[in-house]
């Protein structure tokens, strides 16, 4: 369980984060922070599966569903996002189950799993593009501005409000991460990622365990998409769905560190700050440069630092205590604080 010191550090950090927008009001910097928090949440959702060797490239699809279903329900049926977001999450969850169940039942793992999920995000992207009469196709889509109650429409002009919402969602993501980390499911999933047959022989219901984590991950990713849509008020198929978004999630989670709770957040901070610095520093010249740097970094990280920045840092700080696990790519288990 969490040690006292660690808990205190979390509490102080959190208090500082909550207080921040009331002290510091620069809208541009707050905007960047909101983006970082929303994407951190999305990356955390991805890493919930990714850390157990379930590398999905379908999360772009779940995020797209979260964003588009919420926006479509609002524009066409006038359904408030308060109902629309849960519905979009249900839709993404249902899709995750429909694709996930046969995948896990028939032991589709490794390359095959990656490529099946790749097809999933491909489908979502193509469906959004093909139904351009409703979704605006690749030109993008804007939720209608609320005429009446802003709260009902979940549309706020105030950056501080959005900052607090994003902070809450991000925190919820971290809490869920720790909850999974401390649950029995984690041990079952680690066993599965090392050897499915052995895990099954030891009494682990492989299909059910994998389905649970996939469902959880998909629901969270859809929520991230919906929140992103409500905040930005403009979505295109390329920014919230498709293979590029999926790869972006993988990239950030790996750069930050897959096996620590704040790893994906660190990944989001690094990638978004990098993109923004390049954008401001080079202006229109920067088009493409950010991805070029991303790509090179991704390759270098996988080769030289597979545990990610935060994971490797924490590793340095702490003496090794446990035998490395195969699925963590020689990573020492550093994700359980205070034990």
């Amino acid at each position: 369980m969490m040690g006292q010191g660690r808990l205190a550090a979390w509490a102080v950090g959190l208090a500082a984060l909550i207080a921040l927008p009331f002290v510091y009001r620069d809208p541009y910097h707050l905007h960047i922070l909101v983006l970082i928090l929303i994407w951190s949440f999305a990356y955390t959702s991805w890493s919930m599966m990714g850390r157990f060797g379930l590398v999905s490239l379908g999360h772009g699809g779940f995020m797209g569903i979260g964003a588009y279903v919420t926006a479509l329900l609002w524009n066409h049926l006038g359904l408030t996002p308060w109902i629309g977001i849960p519905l979009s999450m249900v839709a993404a969850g249902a899709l995750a189950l429909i694709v996930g169940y046969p995948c896990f039942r028939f032991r589709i793992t490794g390359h095959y799993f990656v490529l099946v999920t790749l097809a999933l995000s491909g489908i979502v992207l193509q469906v959004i593009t093909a139904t351009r009469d409703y979704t605006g196709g690749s030109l993008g889509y804007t939720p209608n501005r609320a005429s009446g109650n802003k709260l009902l429409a979940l549309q706020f002009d105030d950056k501080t409000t959005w900052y607090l919402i994003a902070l809450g969602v991000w925190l919820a993501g971290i809490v869920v991460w720790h909850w999974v980390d401390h649950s029995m499911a984690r041990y079952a999933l680690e066993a599965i990622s090392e050897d499915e047959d052995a895990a099954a022989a030891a009494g682990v219901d492989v299909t059910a365990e994998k389905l649970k984590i996939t469902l959880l991950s998909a629901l969270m990713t859809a929520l991230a998409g919906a929140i992103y849509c409500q905040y930005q008020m403009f979505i295109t198929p390329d920014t919230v769905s498709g293979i590029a978004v999926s790869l972006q999630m993988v990239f950030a989670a790996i750069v930050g560190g897959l096996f620590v709770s704040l790893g994906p957040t660190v990944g989001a901070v690094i990638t978004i700050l990098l993109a923004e610095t390049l954008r401001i520093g080079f202006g229109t010249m920067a088009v493409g440069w950010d991805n070029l740097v991303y790509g090179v970094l991704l390759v270098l990280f996988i080769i030289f630092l597979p545990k990610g920045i935060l994971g490797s840092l924490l590793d340095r700080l702490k003496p090794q205590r446990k035998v490395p696990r195969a699925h963590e790519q020689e990573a020492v288990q550093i994700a359980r604080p205070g034990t």
Partner: protein
Amino acid sequence: MQAFLDIFDIYLLEAVINGILLGGVLALLALGLNLIFGVIDVTWICYAELVMIGMYAMYFMVQYYGISYFIAAPLTILLVAVLGAALHYLVIAPLLTAPPINQLLATGGVLFVLQSFATVAFGIDFRNLGIRLPVLAFGDMNFSYARLLSFLAALVGMVAVYLFMTRTFTGTAIRAISQDRQIMALMGVDTNRIYLITSALGGALAGLAACLLVLQYDVHPFVGLSFGPITFLICVLGGLGNFVGGFIASFVFAEIISLGGLFSDLEWGYVLAFAFFIVMMFIRPAGLLARRR
């Protein structure tokens, strides 16, 4: 009414034949990817991006430097083959002992690099060769020479690879390694050399595909995304590493896209193909021809 039906059938036939022609190029791409998967046990997520670089090479050689298409084509094939070997040497070789998923993700990073390199170096404009091949009219049906040519060239390329694999010592070694990685090293075959050759061969196939695709499509940095995912799905549908399965799956996919596009938008053809793929994964998880093994 009768006249309407006649026209309809002609369109249908045209779509079927166009599907076959499309399938040829897809089969070529699938062959390259399957070769690398079968031998090195690595999936190059960035395979279509190699094709994109090849298409740019063709564009610049033909349009800028005025080199004849038939001289530019072998140069492009050579260039992409070198790229393939470099990809193996720089990215895959250091990761050979890492979990397979890491190799796949590393090539995902290369995808970003190639895409953004093209964006930075060439801009995001759509470019084309400016070669307009005539259209072949056959009865009431129209086929572009470009497609016919691509189909034939793809077939020639595939036969050449087949002969290489069955008639040469290196080809035999490649096939042997794909069957048993450990034993071949004991038999005195330098696996690293074979891996490098295979990667170059896979690159060369991507280069050939680039020379053919550039005749039909405009080049832009994201062109890889329009046929890359399809290629992976074809390989998985045929069974990763299974050459014959990949060949059949290419034509199945091409027909679905072509016929789906006939009845509705092209995107729906793709949606149908993707959905078909997912359903097939559940019926035949190990690929179309899995039962024969």
